[in-house]
């Protein structure tokens, strides 16, 4: 099996989908000739042509609204929003139309489309380029919201998302694009949406996270292990739908939980996870559930970003709090 980065895995999935199904097309700003600002679609414009790999005008609402129409009339568009922080002009299309058409037409019309968004910080990017506002989309009815954190999952989940009969928001952790590598199968394979994955088994505490924060959590696990703490690490992979069974089963086993995300704290997705834990596993808890999150501040620029994006040390400290009781 070839070794692939997360970025290469996404490129392969796009290539496979475009090659297998004439209805699939890719549309976004600069996705064609340049292969996208992150080069995730490199080579695809040359291979599939401008009708299938479409360089769109700089208009996010236009991209999503047009792709919505394409999907309703039988195509399978994959759209790329250049950065999550540029997705807000398209939010009206997503909340008012993409997520509603199946319901408001009682299944008569559907919008099977993928909305890809690079998201998250930690690379010292310009303002608006480090957003992690997935809660907005998780709070939007009618769309699935998934977040791979490994090359294997990225490829298998993207192929699954493209075939999904409903709209899928596919969040790609920028920081992991080229920093994680692993062996993945050649050709097509699927990873079902809506299932979490236990990245490491443990007994003392459950760390629940997704996206680029899996990397910080893995570092935290190494530190905790030296301290003799056995932590279980869950990568949610999908926040809508949420794999509650995996969370509850783990928390019932460990009795302690820490939820980690780089999104803003208030009404961040961690709040939902904590609420679900207290509804379904309260009497298994040995300590209050902790959250390690970004703050209710604007994501800082490069020089102060480390104050915002959760680190392994902060996760270790939060685990320590759950063990104090």
């Amino acid at each position, binding site marked *: 099996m070839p070794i692939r980065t997360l970025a290469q895995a996404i490129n392969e999935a796009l290539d496979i989908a475009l090659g297998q199904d004439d209805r699939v097309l890719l549309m976004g700003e600069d996705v064609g000739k340049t292969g996208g600002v992150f080069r995730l679609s490199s080579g695809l414009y040359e291979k599939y042509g401008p009708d299938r790999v479409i360089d769109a*005008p700089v208009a996010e609402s236009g991209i999503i*609204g*047009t792709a919505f*129409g394409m999907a309703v*009339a039988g195509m399978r568009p994959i759209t790329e929003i250049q950065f999550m922080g540029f997705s807000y002009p398209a939010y009206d299309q997503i909340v008012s*139309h993409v997520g509603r058409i199946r319901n408001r037409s*009682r299944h008569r019309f*559907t919008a099977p489309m993928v909305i890809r968004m690079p998201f998250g910080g930690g690379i010292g990017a310009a303002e608006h380029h480090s957003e992690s506002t997935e809660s907005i989309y998780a709070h939007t009815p009618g769309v699935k919201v998934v977040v791979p954190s490994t090359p294997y999952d990225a490829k298998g989940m993207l192929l699954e998302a493209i075939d999904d009969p*409903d709209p899928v928001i596919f969040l790609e952790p920028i920081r992991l694009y080229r920093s994680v590598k692993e062996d993945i199968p050649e050709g097509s394979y699927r990873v079902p949406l809506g299932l979490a994955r236990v990245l490491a088994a443990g007994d003392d505490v459950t760390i629940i996270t997704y996206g680029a924060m899996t990397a910080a959590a893995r570092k935290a696990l190494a530190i905790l292990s030296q301290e003799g703490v056995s932590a279980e690490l869950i990568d949610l992979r999908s926040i809508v*739908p949420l794999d509650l069974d995996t969370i509850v089963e783990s928390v019932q086993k460990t009795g302690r939980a820490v939820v980690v995300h780089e999104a803003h704290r208030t009404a961040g997705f961690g709040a939902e996870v904590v609420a679900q834990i207290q509804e379904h596993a309260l009497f298994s808890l040995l300590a209050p559930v902790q959250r390690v999150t970004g703050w209710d501040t604007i994501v800082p620029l490069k020089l102060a970003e480390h104050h915002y994006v959760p680190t392994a040390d902060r996760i270790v400290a939060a685990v320590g709090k759950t063990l104090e009781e």
Partner: protein
Amino acid sequence: MLQILTPEGELVGEPPVDIPMTRKLYRAMVAARLFDRKATAIQKQGRLATYAPFEGQEAAQVGSAAVLRPDDWMVGTYRDAAAMWMQGYPWELLLAGRTGHERGGSPPDYVNVLPPSITVGAHMLHAVGLAWSERLQSSERIAITYFGDGATSEGDFHEAMNFAAVFHTGTVFFCQNNQYAISMGFTGQTATETIAQKAGAYGMPGVRLDGNDLFAVYWAARTAVERARNGNGPTLIEAVTYRLGPHTTSDDPTLYRDEAEVEAWRSRDPLERVRRYLEVNDAWDEEWQKHIEGEESAVVERAVQLAEGLRVPGSDELFDSMFAEPTSDLERQRSLLESEGG
């Protein structure tokens, strides 16, 4: 401004349709007006949620929809019931959206008309994608989108016009400039003299016409639809018309416009001028008028019965209509509702 039939019913150009077809379209306008008045009446009895009447705009909607093929796409608004009905959307489903039933958004499989857009502006982009999608599938279907003067102020109007022109999609942008967006008059909406002239900025043709003139509408729409179907790209049509009624049944237009203005537009009624034209051509009399009104009223009455007779949706329908298969989140919420006695 293009005009073929004057308010007095006199021809000032070549009619695009013959007398039998004119009778057919006149009858459709009569049916549309009966529907509109019936819907307004039963709303006042509390049987419909707020209703957006289109009286005065029948020629714009009937004339433009008449040139479509049965499987062409249409994306309209809450005030475009006549156009949607022309394209096969049943009256009863247009009412069901207002009796409070989501079933109203679900036309038969052979009808390529999206449920009416309630938000203003976003839907124009959908007509770009629909037409583009058809072309990519080597189909001849085109897409027409209806919107008002107010919608041209939305950013999505710009994005839709731009995308359609850049990608040369088979989209017809049909603006019914009915002079008001709720209370905002046309001159408060834009600093341009016309809406049609905006087309030039996007690199597509723009046509301005008397929107109360069935023939002008028909001619311009047919030209734009043929252009779209032949792969020659989009067109913007501005049909200058007037909303004789309120924005919706919740609106009070006396707060922002004079009755004299309304009366002036009543004298340019889109039905009356066709009636006069037909009468002069010995193709209209009182008896026929009564006959078609009787038949079309019965159809509308039946539609009201059907809409009001739809089974009240159960709670399962909430959860079952969000995705192809309800997600685990929704299944938990369904159980929760049951446990709470809902």
